[in-house]
């Protein structure tokens, strides 16, 4: 199973089971030193792996990024 930060691309390739984590590229599990969020993401992914989901499911785990505008700039292809 996989994480995606770009579900619109994931939906084209249709992997078996994907978890959406809306964090910036390079900070997939969370910010530097934020072990609580790293663990929350991993817990949610592992839990999802044990659940019934049809093939091709893209499950939004509800993680968002509100520390700064890094993710928004990345999605606009700005540096």
């Amino acid at each position: 199973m996989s994480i995606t930060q770009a579900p619109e691309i994931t939906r084209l390739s249709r992997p078996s089971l994907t978890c959406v984590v809306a964090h910036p590229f390079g900070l997939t599990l969370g910010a530097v030193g934020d072990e609580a969020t790293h663990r929350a993401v991993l817990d949610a992914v592992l839990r999802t792996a044990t659940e019934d989901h049809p093939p091709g499911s893209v499950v939004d785990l509800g993680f968002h990024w509100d520390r700064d505008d890094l993710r928004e700039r990345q999605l606009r292809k700005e540096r």
Partner: protein
Amino acid sequence: MSEIEGFALLERAAVRRNVTDFDWRRFAAPSPRHRLAMPLSDATVALVSTSGARVADQPSFDVVSDEGDPSYRVIPADTAIGRLRFNHPGYDVRNAYADPDCVFPLPLLHRYADEGRIGGVGAHAYSLMGYITQADVLLEDTGPAIAAALAADGVDLAFLVPA
């Protein structure tokens, strides 16, 4: 053919500046699902990453080629954090050096194994650099090779973490 929008459209346009015929590979049917058939506390979990991680004595990924780099590195799971290196043109690798768990959570998986949350960590992690425009190489060579290696490692759950 699926319509694309938003980031997928912008990213495709960016890649096409270097690889003029690039397009996203589309699949009509999803990959089959194999639900984990055992408790997590018994499962061997392996990390597959597109963070561009490698061990210090392994070759760097090619981060300057217009076509990207479809190769992969096999990282022994007991590699010391200080021997990890990261090469990737698409994110700030300084964060990965400061805290690999941000994008290459091998240390975190080891802590989960120590705590009994998972049964164990796969003997190897498998690492790619996420900028890959050669989908055929990925689908026909790199992907099957990694899948075979994961099976040989006795992995129950592969955890793919993009950068």
